[in-house]
């Protein structure tokens, strides 16, 4: 259990970089170059960052694999089909319902990791599922970041009644465990979809898990940002801007926001990892991505039913999930250390 606060209220971001640069005796280097220099020295973080990029590229190449090697789509079933393996005809799904196992290159890449119970190519679904999981993770993290920034800055800067209202709403959301709030919203929205004015999202759309995940993480990011803004608004450079006649919105955009940049970058990286993980958990519980769309969570869920005879169905998407989240977390830690060595920013769950 962590005993430290989510953030320190000491000065962070560019406002602190000059002081840090003095300590590291790298006069003349700008704050971003200084951060990059520190990141380049962190080989482990770079290695995991590279691993994440590799995973993204592999998943992005899903259509290439599907069209040129597997020659099937992620939702195409082959229940009654056969394939030729080493000159021998094999059922994709046996008469007893047991699907074919991994064939690797024995069938020219078809059913490389085997088939699921509906005769769908696991490798193709894994890659497309990765695209969905990463897309949801990144988009949801973006949504969280934007909402959190908006709420955190407004609450921290204006204080008073505005702060009280926003803080109360965030506290209420905070009081629900993420997985329970996400599952409840997922189940409720899955049937009827989401209608906000003219905007209508069907229940089986990927936008539903994005909306849910993007929403439930807002308190975890907005509250630390609010704390940082409360500290920043009392600094001398803000006082100076105010003395020069700058209005509140100008101060927010030109003085406060730039000083939140490094925190946002660190948070954003870590949020993607958490969003990918939550998507998997929600999909596993049937409240995330709707079938037949693949995601790593739905694939683990499907695989659980056949874990005795075909363990790879659950293990392979599980391993991909581990690698993605691990790489993002290690890289995110590296970015944090590089940009803000004194910060203790983390997504507290």
């Amino acid at each position, binding site marked *: 259990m962590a005993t430290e606060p989510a953030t320190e209220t000491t000065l962070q971001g560019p406002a602190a970089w000059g002081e840090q640069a003095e300590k590291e005796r790298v006069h003349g280097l700008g704050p971003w170059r200084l951060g990059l220099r520190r990141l380049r020295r962190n080989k482990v973080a770079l290695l995991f960052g590279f691993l994440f990029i590799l995973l993204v590229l592999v998943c992005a190449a899903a259509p290439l694999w599907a069209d040129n090697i597997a020659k099937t789509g992620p939702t195409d079933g082959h229940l009654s089909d056969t394939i030729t393996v080493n000159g021998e005809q094999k059922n994709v799904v046996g008469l007893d*319902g047991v699907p074919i196992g991994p064939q690797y290159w024995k069938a020219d890449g078809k059913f490389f990791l085997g088939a699921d119970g509906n005769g769908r190519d696991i490798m193709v679904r894994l890659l497309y599922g990765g695209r969905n999981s990463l897309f949801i993770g990144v988009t949801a993290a973006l949504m969280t970041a934007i909402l959190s920034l908006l709420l955190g800055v407004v609450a921290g800067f204006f204080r008073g009644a505005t702060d009280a209202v926003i803080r109360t709403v965030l506290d209420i959301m905070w009081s629900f465990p993420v997985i329970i709030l996400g599952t409840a919203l997922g189940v409720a929205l899955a049937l009827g979809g989401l209608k906000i004015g003219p905007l209508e999202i069907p229940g*089986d759309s990927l936008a539903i898990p994005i909306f849910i995940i993007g929403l439930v993480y807002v308190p975890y990011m907005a509250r630390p940002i609010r704390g940082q803004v409360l500290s920043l608004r009392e600094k001398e450079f803000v006082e100076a801007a105010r003395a020069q006649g700058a209005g509140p919105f100008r101060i927010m955009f030109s003085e406060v926001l730039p000083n939140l940049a490094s925190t946002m970058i660190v948070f954003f990286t870590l949020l993607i990892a958490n969003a990918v993980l939550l998507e998997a958990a929600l999909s596993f519980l049937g409240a995330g991505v709707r079938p037949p769309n693949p995601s790593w969570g739905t694939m683990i869920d499907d695989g659980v039913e056949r874990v005795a005879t075909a363990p790879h169905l659950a293990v392979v998407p599980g391993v991909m999930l581990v690698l993605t989240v691990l790489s993002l977390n290690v890289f995110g830690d590296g970015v944090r250390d590089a940009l803000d060595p004194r910060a203790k920013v983390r997504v507290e769950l």
Partner: protein
Amino acid sequence: MGKLGRRALALLLACLSLFVIAACGDDDDGGGGSSGGGDGEAKKGGSITISQTSQPDYMDPALTYTVNGIEPLWLVYTPLITYAREEGPEGSKLIPGLAEDLPEISEDGLTYTLTLRKGLKYSDGSPVKAADFEHTIKRVLNLESGGSAFYLVIDGAQEYLDAGKPEGDISGIETNDETGEITITLTEPDGSFSHVLAMWFAALVPSDTPFKNMTENPPPGVGPYMVTESVPNRQFVLDRNPEYDKNPIDGIPSGNIDKITTKIIKSAQRQAQDVISGNLDYMQDPPPADIKPEVKAKYSDRYVEQTTASTYYFFMNTRVAPFDDPKVREAVNYGIDKPGLARIFAGELAPGCSFLPPGVPGFDEALDVDECPWGNPNEPPDLEKARALIKEAGVDGMDVTVYGNNDDPTDKVTEAYADMLTKMGFNAEPKILDGGVYFQTIGNQKTKAQTGFANWFQDFPHPKNFMFLVDGKSIQPTNNQNFGNVDDPEVTKGIAELNQEPDLTKAEDQWVELNKKLVERAWIVPYGHRKLSTFFSERMDFDNCRRFHPVYFNDYSSWCLK
């Protein structure tokens, strides 16, 4: 790695371990009971815990219409007449239930007279009265039960329904509480009406039972068991009915087990593992394909499969595009991969074309397989023909929503069906609903469900019981069982005419023809007939205490512990 990384990794591992946890059994103890050898004598007493994958649609005899509800409730509620507690064809024989004898039918086939047995009491100790029968039928009609169409043949039933007054009168039902005589007058002869009287809908409940869904507080009944607890989506409990044991009915044996707790457990995998380990004593659904080979090999001394009179089919809503076009319905019949669907059922589905299943009068084996108008169901589909017909109808590329529920393997079947429709030229997407609300949802006209999964298990051994699902007269705004709104005047007329013949053997050939007409006109897509399994824990007496009833399936009252 920082703390954040380690924490996320820990969370991740916890998430991944879910599938391991899901495979583990719970600690719930079936309780009671001791072991002992089975020497042909049924041991009395003990308690067991069994499972269902989804909550019964209703725990109310007036409303339930799924195997999940009927299998337990037929032991709690008994109609005036019922079926012999026997396996095979003997189990289709009608015997007196709460009535002293089978109904006396007038020569014109319009009047049925029965007399209530004397001294009957409900499980709460209150006396059973003849007037309760009318109240029971009123509840079925008033609650718009899926079975209400069966009782509209009673004189005055339609008028009662139209009046919208729950306490109103059904003129065709006369009862006398003093003599126990019940007289039912029909508007037209109905050859299946004795079977309709034997359905659980007509099982008597007290006259003060409210006109509302009583799932959370099921009313008392007359039967070997009573419902003592009903928590939707969690569990329900059947206890031996002491009132019934005091005054049992001939031919309806009291139960052996004292207490039967049914838990709702989503994962079939977990249920099977729990039956193997002894945490559960029976699972209503078959073990999942994944562990069935192991079950068959290692536990064959407590596992058996039985063929049921059932049909699995896809409905196509004839009131909604694109299935309002006969060409499209023909295309779907040509394009369905029936052997492929059978694989999803792991060999527990015999591919077939006939709507009437084996075991039901009117079933035609040739139509089912060799002479199927849409191709042999054991061979690959004719996708080219399906695509050509869909193009001809001008609906290729059209969006189609395929309805299904999340029971295993229905979700997989629904996904496969959507994929097959996509291969035929549609843009089909599955919509998977919770099993507990699925049939109500697709049976509501407001849903406008285009197409989807449906199945039917015999309620009573008469072709009308299946043909009711495609009878234009049975279409309702809610709780509709004719999901595709099939309204073929010739089929509807044929059902009405053949149903007037009380001697089924005389009309069997005509039922065969009607079934053929239904299949050839592609109103629905039948794709096979199901086998069901009985899988017991080690402590159950598999050899001596087990009865698979042709109408009601596993008879819990026959079970006993070793």
